[in-house]
């Protein structure tokens, strides 16, 4: 293994890149974000045509059996183009959770529709404390004979407002902190007692807080009552894809900042001439190199079935911290114009901030690594 993409991966990546380069320019992306549409139906349809929606799933459920490394190959261009389509929410989170419980006929049905692009899913897991650890899930789920009842709240559920189905993590027994007693349930966003508070995130994504007030869930919509492993692997895989997006964004920042520093003149010379600016560019390159190496190596570990939780924490922590650092350096190097909404630079910063905050920030993951767990 040389950690480079295979020819197939390179081709896939190239076709995604080429398409986005043409149809997902920064101007087009900004127009989309400032419209009232949460994502582009045309782009989504093209993703269906490219096979991206079935990419991560095994053939047994109608997918094409792509690997985590395949997803890294397309994740980098997603990050580079600041994609706001619900790929993470519907495909990588909801879809992967459904695929892992596809012995349930309802899960399989929903997955088919998500794969086909005829439905969108959302994964309601985060409760606002900044921890990716399923054991901390507190949303209450009472078993009442043939049905369950949900009470509590999920925060910042990506794609919830557009979702046709919510895949919800909840606690059927025990207290937060325990790994057992976790359920995975299908909930219709329009079900009685479900209340969505939708909003747009600083990085241009549609999301919602979702409150559950005595929401009845029939037994056949309960996909698992021992869901720790499913949630963990779903979040773990998503985290690699998210890291790929981050690395794509970091690479774009380095490239655009280097170009700016070479062309922008102050005091009669390009600002890249100033040693402090030059060294900042050098540090950006160092950071991008480290983040990208950790991404490629960790993805390979996941593919080889050898990634530990510690390996994933290393990746998420490094990408989170280095991403912020690269983006802040890019803004500073651009000077005034870097502090406006008019350049892509600031939007990369916001995207990288959001990626750091999701599924545990760098502080969280460094502590996990440092604890030697």
């Amino acid at each position: 293994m040389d950690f480079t993409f295979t020819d197939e991966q390179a081709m896939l990546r190239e076709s995604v890149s080429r398409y986005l380069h043409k149809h997902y320019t920064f101007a087009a992306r900004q127009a989309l974000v400032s419209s009232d549409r949460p994502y582009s139906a045309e782009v989504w349809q093209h993703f269906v045509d490219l096979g991206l929606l079935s990419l991560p799933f095994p053939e047994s459920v109608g997918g094409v059996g792509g690997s985590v490394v395949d997803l890294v190959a397309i994740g980098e261009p997603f990050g580079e183009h600041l994609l706001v389509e619900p790929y993470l929410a519907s495909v990588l989170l909801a879809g992967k959770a459904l695929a892992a419980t596809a012995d349930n006929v309802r899960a399989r049905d929903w997955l088919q529709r998500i794969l086909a692009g005829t439905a969108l899913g959302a994964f309601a897991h985060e409760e606002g404390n900044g921890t990716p650890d399923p054991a901390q899930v507190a949303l209450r789920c009472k078993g009442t004979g043939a049905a369950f009842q949900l009470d509590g709240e999920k925060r910042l559920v990506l794609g919830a407002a557009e979702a046709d189905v919510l895949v919800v993590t909840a606690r059927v027994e025990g207290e937060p902190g325990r790994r057992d007693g976790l359920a995975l349930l299908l909930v219709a966003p329009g079900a009685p007692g479900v209340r969505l508070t939708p909003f747009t995130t600083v990085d241009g994504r549609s999301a919602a807080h979702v409150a559950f007030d005595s929401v009845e869930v029939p037994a056949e919509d309960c996909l698992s009552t021992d869901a720790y492993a499913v949630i963990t692997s779903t979040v773990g895989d998503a985290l690699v894809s998210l890291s790929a997006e981050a690395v794509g964004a970091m690479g774009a920042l380095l490239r655009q900042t280097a170009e700016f520093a070479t062309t922008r003149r102050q005091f009669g010379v390009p600002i890249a001439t100033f040693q402090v600016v030059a060294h900042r560019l050098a540090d950006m390159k160092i950071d991008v190199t480290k983040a990208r190496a950790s991404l490629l190596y960790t993805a390979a570990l996941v593919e080889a079935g050898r990634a530990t939780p510690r390996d994933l924490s290393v990746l998420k922590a490094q990408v989170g911290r280095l991403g912020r650092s690269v983006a802040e350096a890019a803004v500073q190097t651009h000077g005034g114009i870097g502090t406006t909404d008019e350049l892509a630079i600031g939007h990369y910063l916001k995207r990288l901030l959001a990626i750091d905050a999701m599924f545990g920030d760098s502080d969280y993951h460094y502590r996990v690594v440092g604890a030697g767990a």
Partner: protein
Amino acid sequence: MDLTTGPELDAFREEVAAFLDTAPTDAIREAGRKLTSVFSPFDEVMEWHRILHRRGWAAPAWPVEHGGTGWSVEQRYVFAEEYARRNLPPLLPNGLKMIGPLLIDLGSEEQKQQHLPGILAGEDYWTQGYSEPGAGSDLASLSCAAVADGDDYILNGSKIWTTLAHRANRMFMLVRTDSSGRKQHGITFLLLDRLDLPGLQIRPIVGLDGLPEQCEVFFEDVRVPQSGRVGAENEGWAVAKHLLTHERGGSTSSPSLYRFVQTIREAAAVRTSPFGGRLVDDPVFQRDLGELEAEVASVEHVEKLAVSGHPISADLAFPSLNKTVSSELTQRLTTLMARVAGLQGLPQQLQALHVGSGAALLSDDFDLVALPYYLNSRAASIYAGTNEVQRDLIARTVAAR
């Protein structure tokens, strides 16, 4: 500076507290809570400025003859502390801390009489026309031209990073009146006493936080009177430098920096650590906040030495040192804010940020302002001379280059 508090100072503190507790309207308080910048929400802060002016407290640092309070150093600190403690919106600096003091020092009698009352009273808002798209850190390269024509100048060119120009009715600016010599020569300092002029256009620029704060101003054959000139023609560079170094020894930023520390600590008290328990009890949080609080304390110490006349403030590098330290500390504090808010800070709530919108919050005030504040503060190390330029200046006082 007297470190012991006496009954007189205590009485003063009570007087200040009583006023600050009662005088601000609800909208002014809301503007304080929704502050995400060194520039407070415009309408509310100008209203507050006028209220303070009626009490005689709009410009404590000004000479008494121009409307200052005549307070002692200790009183000024007490005022700043009580002000910050209540999270009230800071008055806009452009008039009170920039053009006002400059006119007091270098303006003609006529200019003083014409402009100082409006600045003091909060009737006028002045924006500054310094930077241009091609002249940022390298300010002396500016090219916005003023050509004499009778008693007027005809202006052509543009200015950028003109703070709140879209709300301003006055502008002080640097223009190029001669381009034959070295670039610092031929610059003229000019006052514009109105902005609704033929040929003058203002374009607000949306910042990283999604809010319009800075602007670009375009001049196309704009006619303004030469009487607005401060100092001699072509000698504006010295005037501008005087303004840039004006704050020497008079800065009291530590009370508002402490306010960040307090806000973060209060927010952490009602948040859960990802490892369980209250965030405020988390040792890693305490370590991070403790370093920032100690850094704020050092800023307080530097400032208190300076206002007390310690030679520390006579150092040529002092203004640059202050600017560098307080801007980077602000950035570190807003970074911690953003991290404490975490996921809850990610929703964009532009409407709720608008004072008086009545829009419901998705969580609390802290989560509302954390990310906008962080994003807005990225500019702190860039405006008023990038910190790279400041460090160049500081280094020159350490070692000749």
